[in-house]
Every structure is written in structure tokens, then in C-alpha cells.
């Protein structure tokens, strides 16, 4: 309803609106763009991020951009049907992780779509244990697994939530071959379900996020709901860019205690595994390259102006604009790295 006043004005010239050409003259972009996202939630991070970007793009290009939370499978379908540039998509790493994990409905995005530019990172992906758990750190987790203790990790299968778990198994395999079998998944759904499994004592470690779980880490240890971060999958430099206040009662500096190199989940014995949830555009493969370039150029100017970064950071997102070609190559390399992790643990 951002365009309330605009639409009241438009109502006066209703017929003019109907008759107006589909293409706005400026960048040869359609005047009404539908931005579908891979999430069904309008309260989640994908929607919020996309709304920030859509708003900025609409103002910059003087067009309408409407975000529709149709979910991944409908979003891909809608994108595939429309090569005119009237439908575009924003999603995150799930789009290729789903494919790596072999989830139904996820094709290889690099073959079927034009990928990039990237716009932001949600740095909050985290793993937590109960506050009074005998395992107080990732080191303890790996030690327990090596000692033959079954460590149950609550995740949602097939994507962003599972990749950190796969990395744990991979690290356990490198440090103590065979111990990875003791790190087992408890496949569940929403954050509520993951928390509940921990409260029930049915999971030893849960996947969570700084945003959703930070307050639980400040509860007294005697509280059944009290939790402790053991690992943030983000890169060190990602968290360093966050506002120094961090999230809630936890400053960025305190958060850094849970990222590499302070917490090490090794990727190959020498470098640490990291995962940043990055949001990026996806376009129909046959969409006019000029249109994509126009969106890319507009984003570049928006990020150069420097205002959007403040909005993003206020919502605990890390600005991360990379031009389309660069972003595409970068994400492809990222994908290949994760493919290695997943292959290495499924090999045995």
C-alpha cells in the first residue's frame, strides 16, 4: 500500500492507466513488475529483504514492484513461464542447496536461470545447545562424537538448515574418521519445532538463528528454555560489518566469539567451513539481457547512494551488492564448495 497516494492520483486518470503502455520508456523495463520470492512467509527474512530491495528499485526506476510470497516451487514456475521481464525472483542459497540435496522441485539454477546480482546477507545462521548441556562448544561436540556419544542435531532437511550439519559431519570425518556417524540428524520443521525438540530433550544441538534464539541465551541456566550459541556459520568479516550493537543484548563482538576462527569447523583440515545466507536475484533464462542490465545498474546506483545499507543493517542484514556476472560466478564457486562437503559425507 506504499503507493496509496499514487493510486488515488491514478484513479482520477483510470482510463489513462489502462491505456498506458506496458513498457516504461526509461530502461525498457515493464512498468509493473512482479517479484516472486522463494518463501511463503511474509514475516520472514526473504520477504523483508525483498521488500527493502523492491521498494528501492521501484523508487529508482519509477515503476511498480510487487513482492509476492508464493514459495519456491510456485516462484520457479512463475519465473519459468515469463521471459518478458514482468516476473523476477529473489531467493537465497536454498535455491542451489535444494538441488545439491536432491529435493524435489529444485533444478540446477545456474543452467536454468540467470543468477545474480546479490543484494544482502542474513548472517544469523547458528547452532545452539541447551545452556546446561555437557557440550558447551563445538569442540565438545566433536569430542563427544569421537568418544562414541550420539549427538542429535535438529535441522530442517534439504537446504540452508542442513548445510551446517553436513559441515559438522565433514569436520568430524576429517578430525576423527568414523566419528561422523555419531552426529545424526533429527529432521524437523520450523524454528518452533527445533526449539521444542531441545526442550523435550530429543535434540542435543539445534539449528537456529541469532535473530530468533538470542533472547533464549540470556535466560538463567535453570530455565528449561535456556540455550547457548556454539557456532555461527557466518564468515568473520560478515559479522564485523554488522552494527556494533549486534542483536538484542549480544554485541557484534560477542557474536564474533562464535564464528571462525574462534570456533573452528574445518572444511578440509586447513581452512574453516563458513556459510552466509545470501539473497540474490534470479531471472528467466530468456529475459532480455538489457533488462537485466538495467536492474543491475539501478541496484548499483542504489547501493552507491548508501541509504539502503542503513535500512538493511537496522534489520540485521549485511549489505552485499555484487554485480550480476560477478555474483553468478561467485555463487557457482560457493555451490561447488558445498557440493564437495555433501559428497564427502555421503560417500561413506
Amino acid at each position, binding site marked *: *500500500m506504499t503507493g496509496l497516494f499514487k493510486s488515488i492520483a491514478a484513479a482520477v486518470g483510470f482510463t489513462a492507466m489502462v491505456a498506458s503502455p506496458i513498457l516504461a520508456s526509461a530502461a525498457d523495463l515493464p512498468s509493473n513488475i512482479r517479484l516472486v520470492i522463494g518463501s511463503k512467509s511474509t514475516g520472514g527474512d526473504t*520477504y523483508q529483504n525483498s521488500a527493502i530491495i523492491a521498494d528501492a528499485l521501484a523508487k529508482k526506476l519509477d515503476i511498480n514492484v510487487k513482492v509476492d510470497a508464493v514459495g519456491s516451487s510456485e516462484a520457479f514456475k512463475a519465473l519459468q513461464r515469463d521471459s518478458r521481464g514482468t516476473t523476477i525472483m529473489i531467493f537465497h542459497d536454498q535455491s542451489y542447496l535444494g538441488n545439491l540435496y536432491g529435493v524435489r522441485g529444485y533444478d540446477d539454477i545456474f543452467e536454468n536461470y540467470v543468477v545474480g546480482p546479490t543484494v544482502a546477507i542474513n548472517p544469523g545462521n547458528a547452532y545452539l545447545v541447551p545452556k546446561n548441556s555437557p557440550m558447551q562448544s563445538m569442540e565438545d561436540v566433536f569430542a563427544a562424537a569421537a568418544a562414541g556419544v550420539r549427538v542429535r542435531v535438529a535441522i530442517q532437511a534439504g537446504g540452508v538448515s542442513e548445510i551446517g550439519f553436513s559441515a559438522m559431519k565433514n569436520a568430524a570425518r576429517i578430525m576423527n574418521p568414523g566419528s561422523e556417524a555419531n552426529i545424526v540428524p533429527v529432521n524437523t520443521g520450523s*524454528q518452533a*519445532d527445533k526449539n521444542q525438540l531441545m526442550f523435550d530433550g*530429543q535434540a542435543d544441538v539445534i539449528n537456529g538463528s541469532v535473530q530468533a534464539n*538470542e533472547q*533464549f541465551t540470556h535466560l538463567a541456566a535453570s530455565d528449561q*528454555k535456556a540455550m547457548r550459541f556454539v557456532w555461527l556459520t557466518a564468515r568473520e568479516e560478515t559479522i564485523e560489518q554488522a552494527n556494533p550493537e549486534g542483536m538484542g543484548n549480544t554485541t557484534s563482538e560477542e557474536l564474533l566469539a562464535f564464528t571462525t576462527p574462534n570456533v573452528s569447523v574445518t572444511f578440509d583440515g586447513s581452512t574453516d567451513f563458513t556459510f552466509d545466507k545470501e539473497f540474490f536475484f534470479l531471472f528467466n533464462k530468456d529475459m532480455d539481457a538489457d533488462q537485466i542490465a538495467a536492474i543491475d545498474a539501478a541496484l548499483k546506483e542504489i547501493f552507491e547512494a548508501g541509504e539502503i545499507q542503513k535500512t538493511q543493517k537496522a*534489520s540485521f542484514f549485511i549489505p552485499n551488492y555484487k554485480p550480476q556476472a560477478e555474483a553468478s560466478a561467485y555463487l557457482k564457486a560457493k555451490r561447488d564448495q558445498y557440493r564437495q562437503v555433501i559428497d564427502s559425507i555421503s560417500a561413506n
Partner: protein
Amino acid sequence: MELLSILSPLFFGLVAAGTVVGIIFGAIPGMTATMAVAVCLPLTYSLGLENGLALLLGLYVGGISGGLVPAILLNIPGTPSSITTTLDGYPMTQNGEGERALKIGITSSLVGGLISLAALYLFAPALADFAIKFSYIEKFLIIFFALTVMAALSSSLLIGIFSGFLGIFISLIGAYDISRGGNGELRLVPEFLEYYLESGFSLLPVLIGLFGLATILIDAEHGMKDAKELSKIKIGGAPFKLSVFKGQIINLIRSSSIGTFVGILPGVGGSAASILAYSQEKNFSRNPDKFGKGAPEGVIASESANNGLTGGALVPLLSLGIPGDSTTAILIGAFTLQGIQVGPLFIGNNPITWDAMIIAMLVANIVMFLVMVFAIRHLAKVVTVPKNILFPIILMMCVVGAYTINYGVMFDVWTLLIFGLFGYLAHKIRLEIAPFIIGFILGPSAEIYFVKSLESFGTFSIFFTKSWIAVLLWVLIAVSIAFSISVARKKKRIVD
């Protein structure tokens, strides 16, 4: 900031405006409270946290309440949680008591809203701590308990239960939802429909197909003959007196509490609240035969429970950071937009926002009551609109509702047609729609909780041994089934 400085005329204006818009959304078949909140969410960014929440909470309360209007007057539930309102509300309209039914429903809504608000304000943290004692097992038993309603709502026990299980079966079509913990694999989908049925049939199009389109098809088959009869229905009928609530205090409190409590349990889903409350009222009633034929008790139970939901669903949101239903899931967005975290520390860290929310809810409930009481005379006249005008408009609104529920999926519109036809055929072959839709609504939750319980514990006995809550739920389930069977026997004896 001081609480008093927040409570500006703008604050109250926004609550009132939100409530009115919410009622309109709720009253139009196919439009829901969730949609109203989603649509207005972007507005709140510029309003600031408290004013934004004032608007959204007004929309929430209004949207849930508005659903009773089409349920009572047109037999089309405006929102999924008013399904059980149709069961007795519409017969009352047919008896010429539409206005009375609306007044009963609105008053019950107010009571339900206020009781749950009190529970929220006084006991939120304690209730949240109790809610986390409900694991997959207890949640499965709650769903199972709600499913026993299928028996209570059937006119023929065997056919009713068959219809209910058919509803469950059809709800399982599509992928085993990954986002709820499934493995994302398809089942029960023919190959040529895989493209469309990946996420199965959505609830809202199924609902408005079964209740909206099917009703219109049945009327069309009879040539819209009773067009005149309908307009003959007296508006007014038996006058509404507060005395109808005499002897209903326990019903009101029980139903509101059920609504509040179901709201507190994340994932169980709002529709379960009114379904449970309705069946409990029927079980406890001295003359259960009246139910389904225009018993005011049924409307009271259903409406006080679905408004009881509003306070309940905010409990896990504000004390665990976890939404209790689909509407509160969007409310989270309003907090994060303003950089406010919701979680176990929220109430302690933001006492003023918390108080402002409670006041907004209180005002919303009162505004809802006043606006609807005032509007009733006019609303009730909708049944006098000629069918040839009313029905096409309803169909158009159903299309809009189906298309927009998932933000623009054309298959949802076809779902509306498929289930409109199904509802028509079901009517022909005497399948029972009420148990069917209840099975359809509760099926996916029943599956997840059942399978996950076994996955975690690996034994069937856990359903009996998990906790005292589980044992208590089994007792309730047994009582509920026993009641349904004895009622069915009595009915059979009368028929014979």
C-alpha cells in the same frame, strides 16, 4: 517513552480503523484476517511500532470476528475458524433468526476475546512454559481429540467417519511438507498432475469451493427457484435477549478457554479451536440433538472459541518468539521491521509496548462489538438481495480469495472449482461435508505429529506413557468417543 504519550488519538484511531477493515475482510467469503494483516504490514513501517501494532491487532481481532457474518447468513465460513459457526448459525437464519444469531455470535466473540486477553495479560509467561510441555505426542493427541468431533458432527456415524477419513486422505495429496519436517516426497499424486499438485490442495480454496460454489451449484440445479422464498425470511425473528446466555456461562468460559489454549500451542492451528469447543459443548449438552438445527449454544461455543484464539496465539509469539497461528506469523514481521526482537525477554524488555498491545486488543474487541452491533441490521439484509445478484458476486469474491491466499497461484482458483463440484457430488451421494472438511484441515498436522512421534521414540506405547498430559488427553478422547456413540444410538432408537 511513557505509556500515556503512546496512547494518542492516532493510536485509538488506528485500532478502530484496523478493526473495521478487519471485519470487512473477515466478512467477505475468501478474504481472511491473515490477508488483512499481510496487506497492511508495509504500512506499519512508517507508523512506528506501537501505532503499527495498534492497526495490525485491530485487523486481527476484526478479521477473526467478521468471519461469523457470512457463516451465519450465507452458510459460507468467512474464515476457516468459523466453520462450526455455520452448523447452527445458518439454520438459525433459515428459521428467520439471522439477526439474533449474529448478535449471539458477536457477544460470544467479545467474551471470548476478553477472556483470552485476560489470560494473555496475566499468565503469558506461565502459559508459555506450560505450552512447551506439549511435544509431538501431546500435540498428536490434541489433534486426535479434535478429530473425534467428526463422529459428533455426523448424522450417520459410519458415513460421517468415512467422510472424515476421506478428508484426511485428500489433505495428504502432494509433497510431505519439508517446512513442517517432512521429506518433500510426493504421494497420492498421479504423474500428469505433479506439476500442479506439488503442494497439494490449499485449505481456503477447498473450503470456499465446498461451501460457496457447491451451494450455488445446488441452487442452480433447482433453477434458483427459491429466490423469492429467501427474501421472505423475516429479518428479526425472535428478538435477541441477553437471557439467551443464561445457563451458558460455563459454555462461554469453557469455549473461550479452549480457544485460548489451542492458540497457545504453535502449529495446532486456529480451526481446531472452534471445532473442539463446539464438540465439547455438544457432548456436555443435555439435548445434543438440537445441534445442527439452530442451537444458539453451538454459535456461542464456536464464536467464543475462535475469538479466544486471538489472545492465545499471542502468548507464544510474545514469550517464545514463535507464532501461534498464521496471522501472528505475519505479526512477527511488524516487530522485525522495527528492529524489535520477540522472544522470552520481550515482555520484560518492552513493558510499555506490551501494555500498549494489551490496550489495543482491549479497544479492538470493544470497537468490534460496537461496530458490529450497529451494523447488524444492515448486514442481515444481505439475505434479501436477489440471488441472481448476490451469487455471482460471491463467486467473484471466492475467486479473488482463492487466487490471493497464496499470493497469486492460478491453480488455487481451479481448486475452488474442483471442490465446488466435489461438494455438489458429495451432496448427491450423501457424503458428509462437515466431517470431511475437519479431516481435511487436521490431516496434515495429524500426520506430522504421528510420524515424528514414532521417529523420535520408535514405539507406539509412548503415546500412553509420555506424560500425565497424554494420559489426560486419552481420557478426554475416550469420553468424547463414548458420548458420540451413545448419542448415535439414541438417535437410531428414535428413528427406529
